[in-house]
């Protein structure tokens, strides 16, 4: 129990370091896709430290400053309820997947308050788009989770991870217990939704640098921007860890970290080759094929468990 509390205290730091590392390596990979040399993999650490070291801070108001803080706090509390693979369940026995689904939105909503007080229309448009995108991907995603709950008879993430635990040896492949193999259609749907959650192309309407000048980030600079970058890193960790825990069985540390990384890289490679949807098209996309697939996935699950 005490060790678990220690883990819980360490988890946010580990998540920040991992998230920043993923972004850094991701930049390199995208550069190679576009036939550039690209920055070194530790560039993101340097950038973040530089941003946090900036001296001038300009603010539009109290909630402008509190917004990023609320966002960071929201992200950190969320990641405490997502187990770190099967290595550390953290606090996930005290709250289940429905709680996590709602804790996840604290960060964007907190940020939205700050962005709103920034009184820049670009930021407001970005937030409006972000919430619409959320409306788009949450529906198929919750149906994918529904099939998981149907299959495992529990909403607790820790128990979902446990239900996929298998022997770890060279002879036996751990993956046979993964829910990806038990529920392939739902896993595909969840991965499609992950693309929107991470805000990678074709679903980067929220940031859209060419249209709305980086949207929510438009008024933030210096230390605030540094906090937002950290929040983005945490966000990447949260979404990928959720996917790995549920569909790839969590696993010990040496599996969990590469797994989250490869889930991120998959969505990044898709990001590297696609253009951007209009926000309306994104909604239409998510409420079309992925939704139908999710329903088929649930029917498949119902057939399987019978």
């Amino acid at each position, binding site marked *: 129990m005490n060790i678990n509390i220690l883990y819980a205290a360490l988890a946010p730091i580990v998540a920040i370091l991992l998230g920043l590392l993923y972004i850094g390596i991701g930049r390199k990979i995208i550069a190679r896709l576009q036939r550039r040399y690209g920055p070194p993999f530790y560039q993101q650490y340097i950038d973040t430290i530089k941003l946090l070291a900036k001296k001038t801070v300009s603010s539009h108001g109290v909630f402008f400053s509190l917004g990023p803080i609320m966002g960071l706090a929201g992200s950190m509390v969320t990641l405490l309820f997502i187990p770190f693979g099967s290595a550390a369940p953290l606090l996930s026995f005290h709250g289940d997947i429905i709680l996590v689904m709602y804790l996840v939105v604290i960060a964007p909503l907190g940020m939205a308050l700050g962005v709103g007080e920034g009184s820049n229309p670009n930021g407001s448009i970005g937030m409006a788009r972000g919430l619409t995108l959320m*409306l788009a991907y949450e529906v198929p995603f919750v149906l994918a989770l529904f099939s998981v709950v149907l299959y495992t008879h529990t909403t607790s993430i820790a128990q979902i991870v446990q239900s996929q635990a298998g022997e770890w040896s060279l002879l036996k492949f751990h993956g046979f217990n993964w829910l990806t193999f038990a529920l392939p259609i739902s896993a595909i749907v969840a991965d499609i939704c992950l693309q929107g959650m991470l805000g990678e192309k074709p679903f980067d309407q929220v940031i859209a640098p060419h249209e709305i000048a980086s949207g929510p980030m438009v008024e933030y600079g210096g230390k605030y921007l540094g906090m937002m970058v950290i929040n983005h890193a945490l966000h990447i960790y949260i979404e990928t860890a959720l996917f790995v825990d549920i569909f790839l069985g969590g696993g010990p540390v040496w599996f969990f970290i590469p797994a989250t990384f490869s889930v991120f890289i998959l969505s990044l490679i898709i990001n590297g080759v696609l253009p951007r949807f209009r926000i309306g098209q994104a909604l239409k996309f998510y409420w079309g094929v992925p939704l139908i697939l999710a329903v088929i996935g649930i029917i498949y699950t119902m057939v399987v468990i019978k």
Partner: protein
Amino acid sequence: MNFTIGHLILVIVGAGIITAIVTKFNRLSGSITALLLSIGIAFVCFYPAFHILPISFTTGDYTFIFNLSTLSRFFLMLFSGMFPLVIMATVSTKPKAHYYFFFYLILASVIGTISSQDLLSFFFFFELMTLFSYLLVIYKKRAIKAGLVYILMGIIGGLSLLLGIFYVFWLSKDFRISVEILKGSYATLFLLSLPFLIKMAAMPVHIWAPDTYKESEDVYTAFLSGVLSKLGIYGLIFFWFTWGIYGLSAWGKVFDVPVTGYIIAWIGAITAFIGAVYALLSEDVKKLLAYSSISQLGYILVGFGIMSSLGWAGALYHTLTHTIFKTMLFIVVAGIIFRLNTTKLSEMGGLIKKMPVSFLTLLVGIIALAGVPPTMGFASKYLIYSALFEKKLFLLTAVVFAASTAAFLYAYRLIHNIFLGPLKTSLKNTKEAPLPFLIPSLILSLFLVMFGFFPGVPLEWINNILMSLGMKSIASTFTTISTSLGGFNGLLSSSIFISIFGIIFILYLILFPKAKWVNDKNTFTAGEVMHNTDLLTYSSHFYRFLEREFGLLIKLSVKKLYDNILGIFEWMFDVARKLLYHGNVNGYVWAIILVTLTFVISFLIGGLR
């Protein structure tokens, strides 16, 4: 101290008369009298040493029975607890004498409704409540047209209730509520549910709600939408429970849910979703809240329709949550309208620095509305989702989840368009809303946060109700709720969030230099110099891209459907009129001969028998 429900109702009516008389002489002292008396009434209803006794009296061979069941005690607390808070908000608007009089009469008739255990007195008090609330709806001249629709729907509901009651009497020769014969009668079930679906503004019969909520007096809207609409769920539980969940199951089951309940759940889900879509597209702050109210009551119907103990717990929990946050949101908005004299969202903006307390309370309100953890909104959402997961109703889950995500959208729009963005130049001299609006909203937001930390406290009352209705209770402690699938710890998740927030905030205070404050003009505009910050307001048609996507849905309107049905009837009668009154004398003669012949023939046939 012991007294009966009759005494309570008489005292409330008396308080109304006293307030009206005082208000006739002096508006302000009338308001204060109203406030003090309402606090007294709430105290009487809440104080545990006061026992409210049942009462019954017989006229002829019929007995009227008034008794407070566990269910009605819950609603009594809700109504009498909200009443003084809403009355407090009226103090600065200084309404006329009859306003308070009708307000007290509404409370009296509501208490009559929830305590009556026989059908006739239930009908009597329910209709009285509709009548008085109509009289308050038309308190403002602008609401007369909307009030007409309100009373019309009220009359339709009342007639349906009366028909249902007569049908029950015809079947059982008794006006008692606990009758066995009801089992298997679709007609009574429909007739006795319709008035409450109207009261809750479920989707096909919601047409009264948006306009009535928009046009009625601002503070009264809080009571109408936050409190009175809950009589709908009370009535549904009151009547449906008579059939019993097992009796209802006799008609067959879908996904382990009684068919009738399944239909109600779908009505609720569709109401929740379409209401949310309309809310996020509306350009008027009260209309937004009105559609949000319609949408939120849809969740209650979903929980109710699932007909499991989790579902009913979710429905009752959401009843409590929605009562608190919607009353509060309407009161806050009433305060803002009181200062700005406009309800248009596009005429507001940037008020955060002018109205900080209103902003904070509205913030807590929308967090509860969105169902996000540090508030009690999450617990009710949690129970409803668990009920849906437990019964494996995946399509309903999808629709309800879409609705609750759409709630984020209109909640953000509400707070953004009023408080965030650049300050409108026309609002430069706005002051904070007066204290009578702020105090009740602060009290209510305190409850929202407190029950967010201790979600098990309201659940304890709800468990009592469930047990009195013969259902399983939900496993819970003060801080946790657990179901067969999972559970959550409200205190842990909320306090961790607050403490992490506190740590980061302290770090921010230590590490960050003092911020340089910049004004609205100092924003990134791609090099363009902005002199008029009003042009930077992103407010009207906030979700225009969604208007494009939901175009078909917006075009579909129930009002148009009713108009079309009316058109069909008009056409039919027109055809009939043209057939009968064609202006040809020969035709009339033939018609007379035909009718006479029919009579003669039928007489002859009858005679032969």
